[in-house]
């Protein structure tokens, strides 16, 4: 490995860092005395520009791995394939989040805000590309620390500070757990590379310490994605953080975390990988060892998935604040997505059949594609949803359900966007949310994993039906019930444009899912 390679592989992150510096210089240097909205526009524009350039950089990369040392020791970072899809998603979502900054009043420190957002995004990009435990941790911390800061940014709001505090404490603890788990894994295998870990653990067979390590890792990662039982920070954070920050947390950090989980899945429990032909061990021995050790990891995820689906949906039913409703619904959606990661043919014992060959494991790739599709489209929808909530909040001062009363009269476009986005979250065709769910469940079932994944799919569909109720509560207020005030809600034209674009994308990709699906299938 040489530094040229390093630069090439980390070009997207580098571009973002340069953008950070630019934003800070421009905002704190040149525009010191300018009006707030000018600074806002400048910072947001620079930030978006940075994302665009970074996006171009991502596209230019082919599939490659960055390795440390000469041969044998495994990769640090990967590029191309699904990594680039995830990274592109992260960058687009970051750009959209930055656009939500328009008209927001929560802070005067625009430059710093944008800078932290971009840095956190860089962290997200790193996570998506990571192939090594330490790189994962670095990226995760970069992302998380940025998110803690973003949550606290509304200095005048007590809620913001409280949320950030909770988030930080909780997050700090889970990071500690994660690192501890990583350290065990290193201790057991002597390497921090994901593929090599799998190979060496397969050879040595399972041990209790290994499962302890895995639980710790799940705790750490589970916190990031807000899965039950590590979800308690989510409602408060979604509620307290300023709107763009909440949108960022809800979208980008989820995409990054799930990209990471996909990497873990593909390296550890979904495919026996590593160097199978080395060391004189036969293929059969390796695969037997694999089956004794790795697929069982998914069981923990299955339990977490089921719990999240149930808790998320049921708790959302009782919410009166739309932000908290979105938080709990996020937990529920995470439950659905985890199902895709956790389903494995081993649960019917099919995987232990004698006919081992590499081809029989390819269906999992389709499941990963479905997972990625779901995360990306969910994140997009969430950004839009937070955008609408932010606008309504600014006009009415609160995000309670009743502040949406009569929205169709006060701003029909906004109400229409709300309709599209919430129905998509509920899973109503022909919107993209439906396709994402269908695709995911079809992929899970096609694995023929037996009764357990099937019952979970049934549970997921049932819980989706429950979710329609609370999404309709919001829509009911927007469309059906009598308004309290009929004054027009003003929206910045750029925000309107962006929200409309998101809604249009939701409809378009919902009707023609191959638009996005083809790109994802490419890996």
């Amino acid at each position, binding site marked *: 490995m040489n530094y040229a390679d390093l630069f090439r592989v980390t070009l997207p992150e580098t571009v973002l860092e340069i953008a950070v510096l630019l934003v800070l210089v421009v905002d704190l240097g040149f525009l010191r005395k300018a009006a707030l909205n000018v600074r806002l526009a400048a910072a947001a524009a620079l930030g978006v520009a940075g994302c665009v350039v970074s996006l171009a950089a991502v596209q230019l990369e082919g599939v490659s791995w960055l390795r440390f040392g000469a041969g044998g020791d495994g990769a640090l970072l990967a590029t191309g394939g699904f990594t680039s899809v995830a990274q592109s998603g992260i960058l687009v979502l970051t750009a959209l989040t930055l656009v939500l900054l328009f008209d927001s009043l929560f802070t005067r420190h625009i430059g710093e805000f944008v800078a932290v957002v971009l840095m956190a995004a860089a962290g997200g990009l790193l996570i998506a590309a990571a192939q090594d435990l330490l790189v994962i941790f670095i990226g995760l911390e970069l992302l998380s620390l940025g998110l803690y800061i973003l949550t606290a940014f509304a200095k005048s709001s007590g809620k913001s500070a409280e949320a950030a505090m909770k988030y930080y404490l909780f997050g700090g603890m889970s990071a500690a757990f994660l690192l501890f788990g990583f350290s065990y894994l290193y201790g057991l295998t002597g390497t921090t590379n994901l593929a090599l870990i799998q190979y060496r653990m397969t050879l040595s067979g399972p041990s209790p310490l290994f499962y302890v390590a895995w639980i710790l890792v799940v705790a750490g990662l589970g916190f990031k994605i807000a899965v039950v039982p590590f979800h308690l920070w989510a409602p408060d954070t979604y509620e307290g953080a300023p709107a763009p920050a909440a949108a960022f947390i809800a979208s980008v950090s989820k995409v990054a975390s799930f990209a990471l989980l996909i990497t873990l899945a593909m390296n550890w429990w979904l495919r026996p990988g590593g160097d199978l032909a080395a060391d004189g061990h036969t293929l059969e021995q390796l695969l037997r060892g694999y089956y004794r050790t790795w697929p069982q990891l998914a069981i923990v995820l299955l339990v977490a998935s089921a719990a999240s689906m149930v808790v998320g949906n049921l708790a959302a039913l009782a919410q009166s604040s739309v932000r908290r409703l979105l938080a709990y619904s996020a937990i529920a959606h995470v439950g659905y997505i985890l199902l895709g990661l956790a389903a494995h043919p081993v649960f019917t014992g099919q995987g232990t059949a004698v006919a081992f060959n590499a081809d029989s494991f390819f269906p999992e790739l389709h499941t990963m594609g479905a997972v990625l599709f779901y995360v990306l489209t969910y994140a997009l929808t969430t950004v839009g949803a937070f955008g609408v909530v932010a606008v309504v909040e600014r006009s009415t001062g609160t995000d309670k359900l009743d502040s949406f009363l009569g929205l169709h009269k006060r701003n029909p476009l906004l109400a229409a966007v709300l309709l599209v986005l919430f129905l998509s979250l509920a899973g109503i065709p022909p919107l993209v949310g439906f396709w994402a769910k269908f695709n995911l469940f079809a992929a899970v079932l096609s694995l023929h994993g037996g009764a357990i994944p099937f019952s979970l799919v049934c549970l997921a569909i*049932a819980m989706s039906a429950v979710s*329609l109720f609370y999404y309709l509560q919001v829509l009911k207020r927007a469309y059906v019930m009598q308004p309290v005030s009929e004054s027009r809600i003003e929206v910045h034209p750029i925000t309107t444009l962006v929200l409309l674009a998101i809604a249009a994308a939701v409809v378009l990709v919902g009707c023609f899912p191959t638009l996005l699906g083809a790109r994802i299938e490419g890996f």
Partner: protein
Amino acid sequence: MLAWTIYLSFAGALLEALLPKGKSAPARWMALAVAVAGLAIGVAGFAAGIGQGRVTLIDLPWVPAMGIHYLLAADGISRVLVLLTGLAAVAGVLFSWNIELRTNEFFAFFLALIGGVYGVFLSFDLFLLFVFYEIAIVPKYFLIAIWGSTRREYAAMKLALYSFVGSAMVLIGLLAAYAASGSQSTGLVALAHAHLPVSSQMWLFPLVFVGFGILAGMWPFHTWAPTGHVAAPTAASMLLAGVVMKLGAYGCLRVAIGLFPHGLDPWGFSIIGLASWRDVFALLAIIGIVYGALVALAQTDFKFVIGYSSVSHMGFVLLGLVTLNQIGMTGAVLQMFSHGIIAGLLFAIVGRIVYERTHTRQLAELETMHLSRRLPFASWAFVIAGIASMGLPGFSGFVAELQVLIGAWIAKPWWTLAAGVGIVVGVAYTWRALQKAFFSDTPQTAHGLEQEHAHPFAAITWPEVTGTVLLAGVSLVVGLYPRILLDTIEPAVRALLAGGGQ
């Protein structure tokens, strides 16, 4: 060409949403134009399809990786139901002529619902069918929640959730069938030919049948229907009872019976006399017929009588479907058409013609209003609608019920007897409602006479007359000359029985 019914309806819905608020007239006329266009296309398609079997309208790959196609096709059953939808749409628009509140949004949701319904009837890809089926749920919610009456928000939510749960069950069935057949294709014909193992069909069939049956008002999942029909505004009730419930029955036929025919085979053992899913659902259908009729007999709200009568009549449809013979299933499809027209007419009279003028639906209050004198058009229209609903010969309901009864005789004689009881109770509740509401004998008081002169009823408007004549006329024509529809339905049913989704 039939596919244009879908596109026109959705385009109409979009245009309606974009119309300026505050002016009702353009919204109404546009809606009428779209509905009439849809009906015209439906009639043309029906005529063009006479003698043809299944005709594929359009087949485009949609998600090739999963074998999902945008596949629209029409066989005899589809054409008849498309015709029904067209008639119900036109009548619905006519009977909503007086809506002033948010008119353009009303017709936007209305046309979107119609478009979804057209889509279901014309889809021959199971995924596409499901998409259209779900698309139809949301407009229903808003139509009832915004423009409805008694307990509308509760009724709308109940209806939406029941429908969604039903469709969730269908989704599970769809996913399972798709996976079990090798994840090759979601086309109805392909899945029917996939020959899923009997053990899978044994649990897939009841799942999907109940899923669709919820929307068809199958007992005991019918409770959304009376509440929903009563709460909905007239046009929505007409559509709900007339067409949307038929979506459920259509799904039972096309998907459940078409794809999982072996699910109806005997189990090999019997519990309390039931030896197969066929027996179970026949029993539920019969309970629906009789229970619906008995409960209708006890109602004090006019619209509830009609609502429960819908449950009872849909019981006939479901019974006809599970007879699994040519004549019974033909009767079921004909009953779908017939009841769609008749229920539409009944709700139109009760909701639009009577309620808008008297502002009450309580039979006890209507008894004092001497409607046979003050609203002769409504009274006689209800006589005709009531006769048709009772299944008196000369109207479409008789031929349909005749066939279902014959089918029941062939399948299991005791089904016929039970259904006969339902018919007799049907006569009773219809006649009771007719008497109480229109032809009551309560004497006229002087005070009452004064009130009548002081507050005369609004005259009957041309849309009301047109709508009534349209619906009653169609029922009469089909009743007197059933071949007009039977010639199209029978070959399609024969094909379906022969090999599922041919």
